[in-house]
């Protein structure tokens, strides 16, 4: 299997996802309205109350944090999309084609990365209008964007794996957000970790999101960056080494383990119907004065 076909397969799948991105209303909202809302809402509601030490404008502190927030929220749509492809039989169709197996996931995450690039540009633009500046020069700014894209790739693969495991689109999306929200709020995304109670600090300091946001912040605000960036890269690399093979492996055998997808939809409906009838019958029997 040549590398040329791998690239071709990934770009075909990426093309599919980019088309969906501009045609599905939810996806458009996740990529446009939501990031802008994050920038404006958090700046104007929390900006007056939160004064992180050493930062003149809260937006300079905030924006690197909500880069990660917006990317993580957007990536939850990958869990939805992959679970949706599973339930609609798209993944079965792909698995019966002579294409590279990992391309379905790689193409999806590649499309996510392109979307994230757009989201980062949009947020930076809106942020700039209300006072955000990169303080460490263009090189550091580009590095920050690159690092944000890298953590985005991690989120996409984690959510792809989640979608493959959960299988139900709505549960996958909700489950993803429920996992992301506590992680984001127990990190340095909005406030310095040092203001948190001691027991929470212990976790917040090693929270992968803290490590990433701190590195992004260092690249945006200036100051010593090397340690932060190495730590962030180590976290990103570590997570990718685990999640990419896990997701690809899960994809390869995803439908093979479930009886549920191996029987016809009709059969499932009938089974559910029988179960429902049984429950109703027993419920009626157990009602006092019900049929004897």
């Amino acid at each position: 299997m040549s590398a040329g076909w791998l690239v071709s397969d990934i770009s075909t799948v990426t093309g599919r996802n980019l088309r969906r991105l501009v045609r599905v209303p939810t996806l458009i909202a996740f990529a446009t309205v939501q990031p802008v809302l994050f920038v404006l809402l958090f700046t104007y509601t929390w900006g007056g109350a939160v004064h992180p030490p050493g930062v003149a404008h809260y937006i300079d502190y905030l924006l690197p944090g909500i880069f990660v927030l917006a990317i993580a929220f957007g990536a939850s749509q990958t869990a939805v999309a992959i679970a949706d492809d599973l339930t609609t039989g798209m993944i079965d169709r792909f698995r019966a084609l002579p294409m590279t197996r990992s391309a379905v996931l790689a193409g999806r995450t590649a499309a996510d990365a392109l979307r994230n690039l757009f989201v980062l540009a949009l947020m930076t633009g809106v942020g700039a209008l209300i006072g955000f500046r990169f303080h460490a020069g263009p090189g550091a700014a580009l590095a920050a964007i690159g690092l944000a894209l890298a953590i985005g790739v991690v989120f996409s693969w984690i959510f792809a794996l989640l979608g493959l495991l959960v299988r139900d689109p709505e549960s996958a999306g909700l489950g993803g957000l429920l996992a992301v929200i506590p992680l984001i709020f127990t990190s340095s995304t909005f406030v310095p970790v040092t203001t948190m109670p001691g027991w929470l600090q212990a976790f917040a300091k090693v929270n992968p999101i803290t490590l990433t946001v701190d590195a992004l912040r260092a690249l945006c605000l200036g100051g010593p960056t090397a340690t932060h960036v190495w730590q962030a890269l180590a976290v990103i690399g570590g997570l990718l080494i685990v999640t990419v093979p896990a997701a690809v492996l899960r994809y390869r055998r995803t439908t093979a383990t479930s009886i549920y997808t191996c029987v016809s939809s009709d059969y499932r409906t009938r089974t559910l119907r029988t179960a429902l009838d049984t429950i109703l019958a027993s419920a009626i029997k157990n009602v006092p004065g019900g049929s004897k």
Partner: protein
Amino acid sequence: MRERPAIVTDGLTKCFGQVDALAGVDLEVAAGTVLGLLGPNGAGKTTVVRILATLLAPDAGRAWVAGFDVVTQAAAVRRSVGLSGQYAAVDGYLTGRENLRMIGRLSRLDRRTVRRRADELLELFELTDAADRTVRTYSGGMRRRLDVAASLVAAPAVLFLDEPTTGLDPRGRIGLWRLLGELTGQGTTLLLTTQYLEEADRLADRIAVMDRGRIIAAGTAEQLKAQVGGDRLELRVAPGVDAEALATSLAGLGSGAPIVDHEVGTVVLPVANGPAILPAVAARLAATELRVADLTLRRPSLDDVFLTLTGQPVDALPGKST
């Protein structure tokens, strides 16, 4: 000249947890022919298709498609087959044309071939007018046609269609049958699963009847009907009349035991000597005073084949085994 069979399976078994989905399936489908895999829900039809399309590995037994082993040469099998599963697996947010082109590219066709094949198939499946609309706007029948078209983009030697007309209205079903008839005239080997006896009768050269993970009969529709033999006297009970009591009253009259379909409320009696049986039946009915709404004497249908082979009508088998 006898060609190598397009599909061969040898003792396929597959078990999901406690449930034996396949309990030793042997099939052989000659190249260029249509096999109808007929059976009730949960008989194991889909499992057979999924194994042949390399989506699922068998627990035991072997299978070859287009001469390639589905387990050890899965990649070669995937280059030779087209699969249309039970759901219309097409992307609702892409247009019909984009869907076909995507599948074509992922089937490793070059861009020019992909464009040409997509246009040809859109034309063949009467989707040209809707080609540049997103599939979300399609009717169920159009989606299903596009789904079958997608499985044909790479012009596969072997095509698997898993219940292709499920969910279609009668008009859509007949339209798809016509298209499939045209396709198989061009040398594609087709394995078709269906619960509709009429569908198997209409499309398939040979029919294999599956029940509870086994092939319980195989042959042409005519052979299967001949195997059942004789004519069928079908009595539909009047409302409130017990079909079982009617069957009991008819015992001993026909060439075999009467078979009761409780869901439809019919009793089917195999008879050897045709209309000559009618006076005797009328006498029994008069004696028992069981009222009958309808009475038909006919040639055996595939329904009867199924009834005779399994002792149960095709759509009344309980979902207790898969």
